[in-house]
């Protein structure tokens, strides 16, 4: 069996850090380097922050996080059962945000710090983000 973990928690701001640290610990155990883990932390923070800020307007809801070991890397999934995204292509554009205090860079960071990045969303049903990242190949002779 390959390594994995699942975590479910309420959509509260303090749980952004909880999810970030959980994934960072998992990635460290898989042998990711410190710079890679720093990138993973930013990507996870953005995905979970989006759930907290956007998924359940004015209501409580669940952040569902899952990490799987994959061949040479990690697969991170962040899912919610919230309002969903009307136009995923528009939301993924840099500087797009429905909140003037946010910069619209969340998806940009998720995409930049992943090797593969997908967003599945249905209005009224929720959103699932999947990020895949490969470990840096060890230096020859290492």
């Amino acid at each position, binding site marked *: 069996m390959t390594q994995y973990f699942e975590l479910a928690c309420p959509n509260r701001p303090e749980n952004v*850090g909880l999810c970030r640290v959980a994934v960072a610990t998992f990635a460290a155990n898989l042998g990711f380097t410190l710079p890679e883990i720093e990138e993973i932390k930013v990507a996870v923070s953005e995905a979970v922050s989006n759930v907290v800020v956007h998924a359940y307007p004015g209501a409580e809801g669940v952040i569902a996080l899952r990490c799987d070991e994959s061949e040479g890397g990690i697969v991170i999934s962040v899912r919610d059962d919230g309002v969903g995204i009307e136009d995923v292509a528009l939301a993924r554009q840099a500087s797009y945000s429905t909140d003037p205090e*946010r910069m619209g860079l969340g998806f940009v960071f998720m995409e930049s710090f992943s090797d593969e990045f997908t967003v599945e969303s249905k209005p009224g049903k929720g959103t699932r983000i999947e990020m895949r990242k490969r470990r840096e190949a060890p230096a020859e002779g290492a």
Partner: protein
Amino acid sequence: MLEGAGKPVQIAIRRLGRTANVRLAGEFDLKAAPQVREQLDGLIDSGSQRIVIDLRQVRFLDSSGLGVLLGRYRRISERGGSIYLLTAAEGSVRTVLEMSGVRQVMPLLASESEVPRA
């Protein structure tokens, strides 16, 4: 790697006339954003014209923290003021700042000595 994880952001403020030096430490994310926003807005509303924000002890920054910085830049620039950011030369905080393009409006400096004199 996990040092300081989940630790609340710490804010230290020193005012010298219309200049304010703000030192942040910890993790500047969605949870910390309201606290930092409130402190910086307080400085702007009470007349600070130059705010030097020291991010060198910040261990984590994401777009929630960036949004606070950019929002405060917008507010202070409407009043003719400016914000300077002190950052480490490398690391994830620096990477996030560089990628966001905020340096086009807020200079990224290595130390207090690089802050232009008022």
